[in-house]
């Protein structure tokens, strides 16, 4: 089928192009000052800081070392699964300011995820059961790493799998790819039958997958702990001993919701992972416990919605925090937290945020006195 030819009879007349009717933009004839502009916005504080004040904030050292050369400009990260691949929020969020981005859980092969409904709001939190929908590691490397390469912000790829071999193969394919700053091992996804939760509830299994991944990559390696265990300390210690550079605590808590009809569970997958402010006390407890048994950095996550939450996590021993669920309500929160943290340091007279870390931990017994050491039993 050939397209109809259009004959132009006069040279100076442009061919008449059929236009699709588009939305006509009608400009208002007069502009009234809108009250919305006049009043300060409720949720986003007006940028009142002057250039001088900003320079002072810049002078505060927020940088954090998560081990193996993973230096972040600030300790505010965005959590896996809540920020996609960093490109989705577009102009709304200044991605370049974030400490790091943990991307959506990535598996060896593409996964279509769980049946819907996948998310629901619960008191002070939400349940999700996405089921690790992702295009597979090869597609992630092809589509997103060229974009990440140009970013100032580090991108930590969250890796999930069903077996040790899966994890190893995914990490092998990510190793050495420009744009990948680190790996976060998701050994604790509660939403898929074989999502690796079996690795997070057993110290030996957790150590074996960590060690196996450690052998194939020199990338900084974070391991994400599950709160769905009786005692997280032996698991954390085993992971640290197996060569992890940092720990992320915690993943979501397993939970369910009931459909309004009361005839079935609400989520398509029945089980979902609880996140949001509802889990903050649990996550705080886990960070508090883990910080006392491992020496590697801990990245805290769970219900961070304001600066007070960040300070709480730092106080119980975390060196950085991830913001997750709160991004859905306020995408600009992570960037704002960076400034607020710097301001909080300034207010306390610190030139770095490090004095804020671990202040609520029980004081450790000091190093044993060298005096009379030979008499110790």
């Amino acid at each position, binding site marked *: *089928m050939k*397209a109809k030819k259009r004959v132009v009879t006069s040279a100076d007349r442009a061919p008449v192009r*059929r*236009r*699709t*009717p588009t*939305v*006509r*933009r*009608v*400009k*208002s004839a007069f502009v009234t000052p*809108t*009250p*919305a502009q006049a*009043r300060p*916005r*409720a*949720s*986003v504080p007006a940028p009142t800081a002057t250039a001088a004040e900003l320079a002072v904030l810049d002078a505060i050292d927020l940088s954090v070392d998560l081990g193996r050369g993973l230096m972040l400009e600030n300790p505010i990260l965005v959590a896996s*699964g*809540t*920020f*996609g691949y960093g490109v*989705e*929020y*577009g*102009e*709304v969020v200044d991605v370049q300011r974030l400490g790091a981005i943990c991307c*959506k859980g990535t598996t060896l092969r593409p996964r*279509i*995820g769980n*049946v*819907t*409904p*996948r*998310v*629901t*709001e619960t*008191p*002070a*939190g*939400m349940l*999700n059961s*996405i089921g690790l*929908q992702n295009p597979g590691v090869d597609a992630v490397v092809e589509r997103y790493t060229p974009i990440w390469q140009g970013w100032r912000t580090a991108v930590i790829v969250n890796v999930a799998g069903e077996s040790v071999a899966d994890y190893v193969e995914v990490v092998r394919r990510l190793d050495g790819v420009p744009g990948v700053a680190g790996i976060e091992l998701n050994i604790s996804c509660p939403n898929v039958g074989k999502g690796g939760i079996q690795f997070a509830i057993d110290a030996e299994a957790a150590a074996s997958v960590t060690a196996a991944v450690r052998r194939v990559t020199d990338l900084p390696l974070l391991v994400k702990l599950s709160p769905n265990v009786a005692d997280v300390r032996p698991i954390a210690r085993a992971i640290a001993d197996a060569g992890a550079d940092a720990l992320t605590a915690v993943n979501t808590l397993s939970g369910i919701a009931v459909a309004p009809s009361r005839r079935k569970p609400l989520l*398509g997958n029945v089980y979902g992972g609880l996140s*949001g*402010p509802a889990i903050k006390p649990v996550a705080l407890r886990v960070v508090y416990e883990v910080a006392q048994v491992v020496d590697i950095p801990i990245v805290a996550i769970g219900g961070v919605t304001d600066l007070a939450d960040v300070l709480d996590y730092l106080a119980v021993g975390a060196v950085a925090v991830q913001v997750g*669920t*709160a*991004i*859905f*309500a*306020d*995408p*600009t929160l992570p960037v704002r937290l960076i400034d607020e943290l710097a301001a909080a340091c300034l207010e306390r007279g610190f030139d770095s945020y490090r004095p804020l870390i671990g202040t609520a931990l029980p004081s450790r017994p000091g190093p044993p006195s060298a005096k009379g050491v030979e008499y110790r039993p």
Partner: protein
Amino acid sequence: MRLLAAELVDSREILPGQWIQAFHAPHLANGSRAGQFVHVRPGDWSGLVLRRPFSINTADPASGIVTIHFRTIGRGTEWFTRLRAGDAIDMLGPLGRPFEVDPRSRHLLLVAGGLGMAGVRMLADEAIRDGREVTLLFGAASAREVYPSSLLPDEVEYVVATDDGSMGHAGFVTELVPEYEAWADQAFACGPQPMLAALARLAATRRGRMGVAKLGRKRGGGKMDPVGSPAARRKAFLQVSMEQNMGCAVGACLGCVVMSSSGTPQRVCREGPVFSAEEIAWEAGW
């Protein structure tokens, strides 16, 4: 997509438990098309962690006013009803992809079920402004839930069906469709999923039932547009606006997917909320 403060101008309960609220948001009023939605943050922050997605019900570029239409079903929506004129709330939008109207379509059939009116309402305005004829079929449970015709443009032919027969046709709104599908060039629907699935079945067999022989020339000159592209959707007889529980509304969380006929879940917030009917796997049970 932009994060903006919208000031409430007017709020009223048009039907029991159903509200229409008007907000002053010039960016949205000028920059959005029928089918798109906004993600609104309830200010009651005690225990609510998610925004609420609402279809843009109407948008008036001249006054900079957009309206949303919702039913109070929980604490979030109830919080909105307590807003007073002058209160500013936080909106993210416009989001999603709009309805695609073929420039050659003269007669548009809109089908709405219940709150689905909010999904197609703005398309009626757009179509009338572009000089098209619009018939709007509306289905509700009973007469007390029928969208008031005074809130529709005069040019729209408005046909009502109620499940209990208390107004208009007694039965489902989908039963009215066969009467109009020969007249219609394109159809656009929003409502409960069973209604959309029934419409999709009708649309799939439409040519056969109407005795339209498929001759050599395909619409669009035989050139194939990629599935889901605006051009492909423009050629579809039926476009539907889908609903799903939503998290981020920008495509990051993958919470709001529907299963597509190609077997890959499609995000309602990003690839949708408008899809052509053949893009959706209706029997997949997602």
